[in-house]
């Protein structure tokens, strides 16, 4: 055995690594040129990127911002000596139509309303999405916002949304009263019934009466004036918001051990998820009126929103079911042992947690739905994609293709990319969650 005993008397200092492993050279060796295969890959990709940019950049840089027709663009480019198949982009069409692509036919003097609605959406979502940084008081605003949003967009007398709120309030009081006398389930049924009766039968007269006396309101805007990007966002936001409660109910139904309820929920969810959205939109455009009592007439955008809501609810139900499944059994038992009944347990203990876990999934569902709103162009709604056709039907811009598609793609990309990043951030936060 050799001399084993060894004591280091002075500690060695930290030294710089060999030059080839650090700095730009080290980084390139490590990340771009490690081995012949990687080197080849690097060269191929570089060539590809250069070729792509070479093809696209000259087209993009084209001084046609102020052109008023495609012909004028062509003249400008010809004047610069740029001819050929694709001499350059014709950006005039974007300058001419970008407002329309954003707002559709919404009256221009009322643009502040959708802008405000979407800005306030941010405020209303803040307490939900950034619960750790925003005061909880703001939740009140979040609760009112679902009524504010449609009012701002569609306008009309203030009494409409107020009466809807009144329905909830009435339902709540009836629930409280019936709950005391007859217990949870009966209370809920009575509450829901009271609210529905109020909305369907009573509120119409009340609105008419009150608005005759006190005509407070803002100018009404028909939903067929909605268009462009605003239409996409509106469909997406309304459908997701409305699908949330339906999704919760469906998810609970699917989780329950009541066979018939479960079968109904599973049937609905699987049906909706099994057919393409476009067929549901066909239903909206051709069949929904047939299903309704004779004489009812929703306009097409409302019908689309209804179908989009049903569509989103099925996906939402699955997302929430995931959230429910992630909760430990002990939470249910804890609530049971304290004597909370089923609905109290759901409302106070289970749902707050399950929904929080589900937020990233909800955001993803929203992104998916939002992208899918472009499908409404197929049934003739003028979302950005539908508008692109109308714009091309204008004699001045007949023949334009890439500029509009590019602009629309950019809008969608910016929006969806931001949201997907946010949802990833949420997921990380949930994974490392503090409490």
């Amino acid at each position, binding site marked *: 055995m050799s001399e084993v005993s060894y004591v280091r008397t002075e500690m060695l200092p930290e030294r710089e690594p060999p030059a080839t492993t650090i700095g730009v050279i080290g980084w390139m060796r*490590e*990340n*771009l040129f*490690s081995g012949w295969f*990687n080197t080849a*890959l*690097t060269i191929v*990709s*570089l060539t*590809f*990127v250069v070729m792509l940019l070479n093809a696209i950049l000259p087209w993009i840089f084209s001084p046609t911002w102020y052109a008023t027709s495609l012909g004028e663009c062509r003249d400008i480019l010809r004047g610069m000596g740029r001819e050929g198949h694709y001499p350059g982009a014709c950006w005039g069409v974007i300058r001419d139509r970008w407002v329309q692509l954003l707002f559709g036919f919404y009256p221009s003097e009322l643009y502040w309303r959708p802008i405000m609605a979407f800005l306030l959406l941010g405020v209303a979502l803040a307490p939900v999405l950034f619960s750790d940084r925003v005061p909880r008081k703001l939740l009140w605003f979040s609760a009112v916002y679902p009524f504010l949003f449609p009012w701002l967009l569609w306008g009309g007398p203030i009494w409409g949304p107020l009466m809807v709120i009144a329905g909830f309030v009435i339902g709540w009081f009836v629930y409280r009263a019936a709950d005391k006398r*007859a*217990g949870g*389930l*009966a209370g809920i049924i009575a509450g829901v019934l009271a609210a529905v009766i109020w909305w369907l039968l009573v509120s119409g007269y009340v609105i008419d009466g009150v608005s005759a006396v006190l005509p407070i309101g803002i100018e009404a805007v028909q939903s067929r004036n909605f268009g462009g990007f605003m239409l996409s966002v509106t469909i997406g936001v309304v459908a997701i918001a409305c699908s949330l409660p339906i999704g919760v109910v469906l998810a609970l139904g699917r989780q329950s*051990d*009541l*066979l*018939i*309820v479960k079968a*109904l929920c599973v049937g609905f969810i*699987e*049906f909706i*998820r*099994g*057919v*393409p*959205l*476009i*067929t549901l939109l*066909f*239903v909206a455009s*051709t*069949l929904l*009126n*047939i*299903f*309704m*009592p*004779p004489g009812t007439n929703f306009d097409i955008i409302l019908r689309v929103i209804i179908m989009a809501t049903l569509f989103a609810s099925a996906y939402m139900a699955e997302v929430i079911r995931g959230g429910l499944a992630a909760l430990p059994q002990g939470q249910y038992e804890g609530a049971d042992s304290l004597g909370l009944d089923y609905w109290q347990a759901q409302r106070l203990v289970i749902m707050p947690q399950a929904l929080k876990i589900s937020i990233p999934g909800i955001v993803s569902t929203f*992104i998916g739905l939002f*992208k*899918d*709103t*472009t*499908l409404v*162009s*197929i049934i003739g709604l003028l979302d950005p*994609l539908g508008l692109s056709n109308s714009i091309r039907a204008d004699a001045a811009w007949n023949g334009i*293709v*890439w500029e509009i*598609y590019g602009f*629309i*793609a950019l809008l*969608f*990309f910016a929006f*969806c*990319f931001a949201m*997907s990043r946010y949802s990833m951030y949420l997921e990380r936060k949930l994974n490392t969650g503090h409490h």
Partner: protein
Amino acid sequence: MATVSDPPKEAFRLSQLIYDTRYRSMTIQIVALIGFLVLIGWLISNTAQNLADLGKEPSFQFMGEAAGYDINQRLIDYNNQDSHLRAAFVGILNTLLVAVMGCATATILGVIIGVLRLSKNWLVGRLMTVYVEIFRNVPVLLWIVFIMAILIETLPAPRDFRGDDPVASMKLFDTVAITNRGVYIPDPLFGADAKDDKGAFLDEPVGWRVGLGDYPVGASRDNPSCERYYATEGPGAGEPAAGCGTFQISLDLLLALAVLIAGLYASHRIKRRADRIQNATGVRPVTWYLRLGVVILPFAITLWALGFYFAFPELRGFNFQGGTHMRNSLIALWLALSLYTAAFIAEIVRAGILAISHGQTEAASALGLRPKRIMNLVILPQALRVIIPPLISNYLNLTKNSSLAIAVGYMDITGTLMGITLNQTGRELETVLLGMLIYLTISLIISAVMNWYNNSVKLVER
């Protein structure tokens, strides 16, 4: 010790329906069921009344009437005198065609991109990230019309191939023509298919290698198109003409496929034998050439014997003739769906591989396994369990998204049944419901496969 006396056996009280856990669930379910039935009844009665007002009796009779329109791409015989039902069937086949092609391509692309995204090469990794983000965050419909526009605008038109000094020329030794009407590729044909331009049969078949010809399923002697099929002599005797039978199966193709499958089976046996030898001796014999040969040789011989040849596309008249024509609409839809779905699959593949902890690779390399073996024996079997369920749900999405075919005029089931048929007959209720039913069936089949797979590969846990 105090005792509680037994309460008297109680009779059934109405309140038990609500408060007794035994009956309560029944009550809720029956209320739900009644509510559901009332809703359905309400919808049906509304529908009936509305239809009566419009004077439209729900009926599927129109499906038997002549469709009157033409479909450019069809996998089975079809002309404008065929029924709407057959047109719908052509549509279903087209849907399935693009779905299958899309799933295959999306998987291949997705796996490559997903793996490249994990590459140590910074540039490649970044490029793939850009790809994934761009494709996921832009609506698929936009991609479809975008790619269609690219195909139409940037590829040469057939007229560019014309003239003494054509602008464009065919690719791959004049066998493939890429035009903005689609791509023409060589068409694999058998001896029996040799016909002249007009589709008439050549008097002199190509020697003895004439193949077996087609078999018309559902042919009958009453059908005038089948005259030649039942004839025993004359040119093309025994050959069914178009329109004979519900559909026709190429016997040559069937035989060739059978031989191919047999070859694959033999190759599988060889692999099994190699496994056995390895188990016995530890050394795995080299068998790839055997396995390749046993697949390819018999297949090639069969093809030769059946008079297999390629029909090359050729510019004649307005268009290229001969060869298989993959139309723009198909290509655009196929590419867009594949590229879009590939972005999602890439993420799934990446996540699947990342889900396998680094420790697994380390442990395997510490045992002396080579990287390729580690991939095959350790990483992939585990990653596949993570990857396949979401993969299949992406297949489902792709299939559903194929209904956007309508945006580029690809005649799938949405284009035929829920498109032109709906429009020409005004039967919204019947066509849309039937269309939904078809999609639902396809989806349910796919998800049944998914569930079966999920259950069969669950990792065993404590």
